């Protein structure tokens, strides 16, 4: 029997699964769920005697070993030393282009978001980029982004990095780089294939009967609720407190 788990715990456990096999994962600022997924993978690998996982969390003292300033993450990625990274976006389209800049036309956008950050660079150079955006609506998952901050595909250009998966609060997609299309991999509990289709603004491939996203098993949940929550508290104290609250709610 699968134990009771929260939606956040499912996302964290799914991220840990998506990261399986990486040696070095970098996590951007203000990304507690990806950071938790990376920490879960590290703890699990340690418990199972598998390869060590190195995690660089930007904005953390304890989980950041860079000594060459802000440029080192980018240099590290360009040297091929970072295997996985996370990107989000106010808009994500069917070709896995992401928009972190705004809606409408540049420069006087209707809605302006902070900006592109390092996306235009890292998307090209990090082999396993996981697109993570909890909101799964036609507002976010669009047919065509208004501004390409970073391109999912670049015809005729050899690149090491690019989209690997898209994880939302409804479903998990993988990205087929040869065909340039998302493929629905699994549905989270309580979502249906029809509902995912209705809330996705781009076309994608899907098996006739998509399987459910596997929930975390008891051992995974124990590590997540114990060690990982403690590790998270250093950088994301509010988020760690929220996870603890959810844990208590699941256990009563």
């Amino acid at each position, binding site marked *: 029997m699968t134990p009771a788990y929260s939606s956040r715990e499912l996302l964290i456990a799914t991220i840990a699964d998506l990261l399986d096999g990486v040696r070095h994962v970098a996590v951007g*600022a*203000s990304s507690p769920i990806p950071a938790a997924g990376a920490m879960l993978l590290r703890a699990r690998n340690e418990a199972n005697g598998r390869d060590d996982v190195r995690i660089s969390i930007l*904005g953390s003292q304890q989980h950041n070993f*860079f*000594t*060459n*300033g*802000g*440029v080192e993450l*980018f240099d590290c990625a*360009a040297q091929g030393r970072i295997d996985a990274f996370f990107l989000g976006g106010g808009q994500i389209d069917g070709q896995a*282009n992401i928009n*972190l*800049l*705004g809606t409408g036309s*540049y*420069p*006087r*956008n209707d809605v*302006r*978001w*902070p*900006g*592109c*950050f*390092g*996306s*235009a*660079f*890292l*998307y*090209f*150079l990090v082999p396993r980029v996981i697109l993570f955006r909890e909101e799964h609506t036609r507002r976010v998952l669009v047919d065509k982004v208004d*501004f*390409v*901050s*970073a*391109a999912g*595909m*670049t015809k*005729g*250009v*050899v*690149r090491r*990095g690019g989209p690997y998966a898209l994880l939302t609060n409804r479903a998990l997609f993988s990205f087929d780089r040869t065909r340039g299309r998302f493929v629905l991999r699994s549905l989270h509990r309580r979502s249906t294939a029809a509902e995912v289709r209705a809330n996705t603004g781009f076309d994608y491939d899907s098996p006739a009967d998509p399987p459910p996203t596997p929930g975390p098993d008891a051992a995974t949940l124990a590590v997540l609720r114990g060690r990982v929550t403690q590790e998270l508290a250093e950088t994301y104290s509010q988020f760690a407190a929220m996870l603890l609250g959810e844990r208590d709610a699941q256990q009563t």
Partner: protein
Amino acid sequence: MTEVVSLERLARQIRSGMKIAVPADYCGVAMAATAAIIAHRPENLHLVCVPVSGMQGDMLIGEGLVGTLETSAVTLGEAGGAPRFVDGVRTGAFHLMDATCPAIHSGLIAAQKGVPFLPIRGILGSDLLETRTDWRIIDNPFAENDPIVIVPAIHPDIALFHAPEADRFGNVRVGRRRELLTMAHAAKATLVTVERLSDTSLLRDESSAAGVLPALYVDRIAVAARGAWPLGLWGEYPPDNAEIARYAAMARTPEGFGAYMDTFARRWREAA
């Protein structure tokens, strides 16, 4: 020679039309100096955010002092979007040069090395290449079929930041925030505010000398205790999140922003 001056005199080095490089919120932002700059109102500044900005950029924009904004993002982090920046974009209040973080680092590194441009991986396929007509794509001259982006050197007139400590000879501790070195090397002049001044040379101890910006690059230093507040300073104090949230809420309207800035100015005047 590095001069130790008052905050006000340091701020007066920044004149209308200058290109000013400032660091990201985690790196040591000269907020007390920002209040002093706002007091003497240089106009049409070209702000280069290394590689992003937050409250400082938002304040300078809100005060109408920014003519050109070169940045990879402006955000108040956990407190949300930068309200004066967003409003300024909507009204077209300044010329925007959107970038991506490593491109700003590369532009400064080119200036540091005295070369006109630097090649940089990635970016291909991004609409940034449409808007940044000063960025080009060339063919790698050493290989076949390898298009690569080049970005021009960024030469700031001034690099401005806040650090924990300087010595009276003008050397400044930057620790592992080495983008501060790059900014200073690239800029014509560097202005630094510090928590404290020490009598002992920071270069005397070999184990810490590597984390020091030597006086060679430093033009003016002013002492400003808690000079990054409400932002934090590495190794010294955390950001005042409640105050940043208060700013984020008040700056949503021009009137609220004005009221916030009045108290902000008064606080620094009284501290000076």
